[in-house]
């Protein structure tokens, strides 16, 4: 089982190395096949690890394994250590499973791109980094995986590096994530100082003993971790990079910015929940941030016109749900929603990719319309994903979102407030997701579609179609492994590692599904009225509330605020420093040093008069001094 875990981790790494070294000697398609095969191997070995793990008793399911010790200073030891326990195996399966489907899909999506080999190498690198992150047995290795995931994201966002927008988006993502990395690292420093270790076993057992609950240190550590999580998971206020990250190819958006990387924040909170429970205020802050994100993202998604951006905002919103779950202590259901969201969000992105592929790269939904008749199967896939997103039973999204809502009701006053927010969010989710569905797929074919649609036999190359089909199946059945009030497989499985803080009562588990289904249906109905029937109510509303509409279109002015607060002052500071410090001090000093050395040398050279008498005088004077010294010493 341990060997299987290591194989899971290193198979994609091997693919990266192989593709990089092979260079042009393999065809583009072969590079893609290597990448997908490696992720497939990862999935199989993760499944194997799961089976073996299930064969053990619930209390014995923690297996750390160290390959080598990298740093050893006194008692502090950190190394290449992975852990095989329920939480990590859960994430391994999600990452490698969904990853396998998406990487295979990408083989078809990117088949006409010249730099396809680089793409597949980066994809494999990403899967490796993400697996490193979830399998890490100590916080330092987790941070290493964390950083590498950010790197892969950057590399893949500006994959089309000749596009200035893509390059800017990559930089933005990287910088915001770097901020999160920094706070994460600071938290680690505090942890090392207090507990003297970073491996999970030691830290989580020692931390409650040496750190007082709600002390400043605990709050700082938790805040640092939360900063990293919020940046990586694109929660308010560190969310501005995610919509821009849609500049990358669609499979990238599917894998990184929907299913896996952005969920790393939730994983972190679940994994280090011991540390978060030492600072409950921060945990609640996480939940509140999640709630705010649900609402903000939902509102902004209502007015977006790029098909991928709408889905991106829905990702943000759904991760908000996960943060609410994790922030209230319902780690198990938060992870469950992570899994189902991975399914239907990847499905949505991939279906959108089919649409974009059919329209030769067009992403503006105002130009689309009537694709339902032309791409029937794509429409069905998209419908499945949208229904799951809106939380309609019996698809996956319903069960997981619902479980979060039920747990929220059990979590005190804050929980109830967040429950209300979440329900409102569910209404918005249904609204904007069905808006997207209706605008793109219903009605008559738009002029653009009539001109540009090009359809292959299966509405896309086979490589793109079968992963979508697989995900449709998963979306439909994936939620059935945890049914509230009956089967709680996920919760039970994860309990030894991340025990939930709530136990929702029966009435909560009845109320929340009823409410959420009700608002979902209401949302769908409203969307039908506004966009399905092609009314002009949206336009009228926009006319009545122009400023609100504009605020939403400008993404609530976050980008402008950050620009004013951070990027303009820092560029001005950099320029000023360049002018005032660098030019005179650094550049000037080089010339200045040369000048002063030359001047000094000139003065010394004046002693070389060339006159014999002068030299002889110097000799005599020196002799006089020497004799004096000699006598004095005697």
């Amino acid at each position, binding site marked *: 089982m341990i060997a299987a875990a290591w194989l899971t981790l290193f198979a994609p790494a091997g693919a990266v190395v192989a593709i990089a070294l092979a260079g042009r000697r393999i065809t583009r398609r072969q590079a893609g096949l290597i990448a997908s095969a490696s992720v497939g191997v990862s999935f199989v070995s993760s499944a194997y690890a799961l089976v073996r793990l299930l064969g053990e008793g619930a209390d014995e399911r923690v297996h750390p394994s160290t390959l080598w010790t990298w740093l050893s200073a006194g008692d502090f030891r950190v190394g290449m250590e992975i852990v095989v326990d329920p939480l990590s195996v859960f994430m391994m399966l999600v990452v490698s499973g969904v990853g396998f489907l998406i990487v295979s899909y990408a083989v078809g999506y990117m088949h006409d791109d010249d730099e396809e080999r680089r793409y597949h190498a980066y994809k494999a690198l990403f899967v490796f980094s993400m697996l490193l992150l979830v399998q890490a047995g100590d916080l330092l290795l987790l941070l290493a995986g964390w950083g590498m995931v950010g790197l892969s994201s950057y590399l893949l966002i500006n994959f089309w590096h000749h596009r200035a927008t893509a390059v800017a988006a990559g930089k933005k993502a990287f910088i915001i994530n770097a901020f999160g990395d920094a706070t994460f690292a600071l938290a680690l420093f505090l942890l090392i100082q207090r507990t003297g270790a970073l491996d999970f076993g030691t830290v989580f057992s020692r931390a409650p003993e040496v750190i007082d609950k709600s002390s400043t240190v605990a709050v700082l550590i938790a805040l640092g971790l939360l900063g990293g999580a919020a940046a990586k998971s694109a929660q308010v206020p560190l969310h501005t990079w995610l919509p821009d990250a849609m500049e990358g190819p669609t499979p990238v958006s599917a894998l990184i910015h929907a299913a896996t990387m952005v969920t790393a924040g939730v994983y972190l909170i679940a994994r280090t929940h011991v540390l978060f429970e030492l600072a409950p205020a921060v945990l609640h802050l996480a939940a509140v941030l999640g709630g705010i994100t649900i609402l903000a993202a939902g509102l902004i998604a209502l007015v977006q016109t790029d098909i991928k951006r709408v889905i991106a905002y829905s990702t943000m919103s759904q991760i908000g749900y996960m943060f609410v779950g994790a922030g209230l202590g319902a780690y198990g259901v938060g992870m469950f929603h992570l899994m189902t969201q991975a399914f239907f969000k990847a499905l949505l992105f991939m279906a959108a990719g089919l649409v974009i592929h059919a329209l030769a790269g067009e992403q503006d939904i105002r130009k689309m319309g009537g694709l339902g008749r032309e791409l029937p199967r794509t429409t069905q896939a998209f419908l499945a994903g949208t229904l799951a997103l809106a939380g309609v039973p019996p698809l996956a999204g319903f069960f997981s979102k619902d479980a979060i809502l039920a747990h929220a009701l059990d979590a005190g006053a804050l929980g109830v407030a967040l429950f209300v927010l979440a329900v409102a969010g569910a209404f918005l989710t249904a609204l904007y997701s069905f808006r997207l569905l209706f605008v793109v797929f219903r009605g008559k074919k738009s002029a653009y579609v009539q001109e540009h649609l090009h359809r292959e036999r299966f509405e896309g190359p086979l490589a793109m179609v079968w992963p979508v089909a697989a995900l449709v199946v998963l979306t439909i059945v994936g939620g059935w492994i945890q049914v509230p009030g009956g089967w709680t497989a996920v919760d039970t499985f994860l309990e030894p590692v991340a025990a939930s803080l709530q136990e929702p009562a029966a009435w909560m588990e009845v109320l929340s599904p009823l409410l959420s289904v009700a608002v979902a249906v209401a949302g769908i109905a409203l969307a039908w009225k506004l966009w399905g029937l092609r009314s002009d109510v949206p336009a009228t509303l926009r006319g009545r509330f122009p400023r609100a509409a504009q605020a939403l279109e400008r993404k609530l002015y976050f980008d402008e605020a950050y620009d004013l607060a951070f990027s303009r002052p820092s560029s001005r500071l950099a320029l000023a420093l360049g002018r005032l410090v660098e030019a005179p001090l650094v550049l000037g000093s080089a010339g200045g040093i040369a000048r002063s050395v030359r001047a000094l040398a000139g003065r010394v050279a004046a002693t070389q008069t060339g006159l014999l*008498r*002068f030299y002889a*005088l110097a000799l*005599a*004077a020196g*002799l*006089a001094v020497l*004799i*004096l010294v*000699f*006598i004095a010493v*005697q």
Partner: protein
Amino acid sequence: MTGAVLASTAGDVFTWIVWVVAALALLTSGLAVVLFTNPFYSALALVLNLGSLAVLYLLLSAEFVAAAQVLVYAGAVMVMFLFVIAYLGGRADAPWAGGPSVTKLAAIVAGGAILVEVVVAIGLAAGGPLSTAAQIGNAFGSPKEIGRLFLSDHLLAFEVTSIILLVAAVGGVILGAAARRDEKSAADQPKAVEG
């Protein structure tokens, strides 16, 4: 015994008188070399200097060195000096022209400093290490002794000095020949132009 003492005291007195005379001659001729304007007079003063040195060497039981001094130094080297001075025409130097400059003052100060320091050093040592002179035999400083030392203990010095002399001789010839060659070519120049 009294006679021996008287004889020794008389010898002492004689030695002292000779020493004083020689010392005075030494110092005055030294000053003269440095201060005279006319190089010819300076050279002659140097000859006197060397002579008084020879007397002092005799007092120090260095007979061979004294003889060599007179024969070689005063006799040969100084003659060579005089030849050159005569050839050059003994141009006047006027060392004191232009008033005392900083360099000259500094030179005198440095010289004075060295003098004072060494005298002090000698004075400090006079009581101890310099108080007694070794007992020497008659052969000390004789040609026989010098020759023996040159050919046994200090053979290397002997050989090296002979090489130095060779080099000097060769150098002198070259310098003289080069000078004559330049003169000849300078003399030939006008004829070539005319012809």
